[in-house]
């Protein structure tokens, strides 16, 4: 009998194989993926970064405020969708994820892989939207890539927090409620996410200034502002990073719990 001597498979190897599967599929679906996740931010850019300034209804400097927000929005929206939608489909209808749940690693690793794939897809969407927005809006005063470590940290942490949030939404919410989820959670999150205005601007509405702090998107928008347009007013960097680490940990914990419930009966 040879089975007694079967060496265990290295989890890192299995993880890489599952990630390669997701990236292969994502690469094939890239055009659809970009339309799904980048179209909305780009439309905002067209209206608020191009049309309204042309009409003179918005000052030209507004693009500096808006660009980091739009990048944050593309990153987070695509990270959340890249995980939530396939999870909902796989567990709800197709059961396609079963073959990965039968791989010889702890099933939590399959969930973690999804989150990592979600972060990578979020980065691709952000990298796509950034130059497109720049093209549409023209030169952006104060835009700088000087603080690369901070940019990287905000991108990875922001992507991870939302990707993990996608894991929770995709496994913890009934598929029938997906429409409700987008109108009740995602839409207000975008509007009150400090994407189209800086958090400091809410000084005029103090109640809102404190209320929006429950919105995870605020920290990604402000983080992008701190990294890309450091001349603009933004939250203290330490606060942003601590908040993003805590949110990632919280959503990951919630997501893994919900995933476990769906994967094992």
């Amino acid at each position, binding site marked *: 009998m040879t089975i007694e001597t*079967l060496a265990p498979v290295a989890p890192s190897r299995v993880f890489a194989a599952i990630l390669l599967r997701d990236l292969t599929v994502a690469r094939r679906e890239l055009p659809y993926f970009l339309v799904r996740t980048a179209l909305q931010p780009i439309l905002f850019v067209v209206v608020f970064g191009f049309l309204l300034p042309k009409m003179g209804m918005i000052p030209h400097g507004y693009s500096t405020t808006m660009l980091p927000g739009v990048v944050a929005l593309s990153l987070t929206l695509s990270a959340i969708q890249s995980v939530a939608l396939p999870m909902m489909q796989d567990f709800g209808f197709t059961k396609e994820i079963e073959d990965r749940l039968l791989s010889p690693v702890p099933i939590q690793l399959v969930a973690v892989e999804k989150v990592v794939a979600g972060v990578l897809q979020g980065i691709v969407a952000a990298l796509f939207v950034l130059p497109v927005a720049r093209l549409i809006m023209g030169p952006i005063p104060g835009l700088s890539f000087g603080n690369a470590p901070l940019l990287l940290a905000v991108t990875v942490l922001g992507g991870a927090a939302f990707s993990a949030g996608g894991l929770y939404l995709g496994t913890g919410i009934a598929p029938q409620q997906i429409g409700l989820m987008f109108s009740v959670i995602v839409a207000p999150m975008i509007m009150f996410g400090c994407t189209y205005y800086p958090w400091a601007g809410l000084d005029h509405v103090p109640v809102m200034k404190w209320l929006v702090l429950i919105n995870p998107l605020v920290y990604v928008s402000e983080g992008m502002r701190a990294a890309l347009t450091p001349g603009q007013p933004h939250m203290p960097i330490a606060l942003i990073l601590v908040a993003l680490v805590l949110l990632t940990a919280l959503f990951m914990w919630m997501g893994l719990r919900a995933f476990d419930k769906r*994967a094992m009966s």
Partner: protein
Amino acid sequence: MNAIETRALRKVYPAPAVKKRRGAPAPPAPPSSGIVAIDSLDLTVADGEFFGVLGPNGAGKTTLIGILTTRVRITAGEAVVAGANVATQPAGVRRRIGVVPQRPNPDRSLSVIENLVFHATYFGIARAEATRRGHELLERLGIADKVNAKVDQLSGGQQQRLMIARALTHDPSVIFLDEPTVGLDPQARLSLWEILRELHRQGKTIVMSTHYMEEADQLCDRLAIIDQGKLLALDTPVALKAQAPGDTVVEVTFDDDASVAADVARAMDGVSKAEARGPLLRVFSKRGGELIPALIDAGEAHGRVVRDIHLSRPSLETLFITLTGRKLT
């Protein structure tokens, strides 16, 4: 060595179980106690054995296979598969088993060959070797012409073969099939049987659940008959058939309560047992079909009208009816 051993295995689903068909039908117990899907099950499957799990829908077959393939948590007891404990070493179990699900669940974003290659890499097999195995398996299972096809272009039978190919890519020692022939046309079913026999000849341990008597009878070395999570009988098909009562089961369905007819039937010559379940009259007798006119008369004398008549000769089927009081399908 044994491929599978379970001791006092028990699975209770929380009371408002979403998947009702997996549990026992509406137990009269208080709702807080949950639904018992598997109840103190002791099973041993030898290495290289073709083992069948036979039972009607809701008997606990899918739950049992779910436990043995590490996808369902155990409530109590223990199960060891291919030398690894399903609760404490699930990754070790998964390394050694191949699973063919009840409904094909191929990766629809990938082509046929990619399904096999990626699956093999999830088990740490290098890509080149995975590709070689994938082509070989498609050849063996007779779907080599579909190598680059999209999964959606495959028929139900072909998808089922792809699932078997996938289950074999990492060369498991134990293969689980959960009702693999449900929904297949007779021809696809027969060719699947041939594939399973070939795997059995190669020395693989096979555990298959089914609710088709004939399938269990034809393929399996040993059969466990389970219902409501309990093991009712366990033996070779030949020995089980020998246990079947020598009676033919005659079932007459009336338009209304059959108990009056059952009373009459009990008094008939050669009837060993007669029972009424609502409008269904079930009579066990060596005389078999001869009784039918008398049974019809017995009902009609009380104003009943016959809706259906069914005759089962001594077989696994009648054994099953004797053991469980209900039919398999």
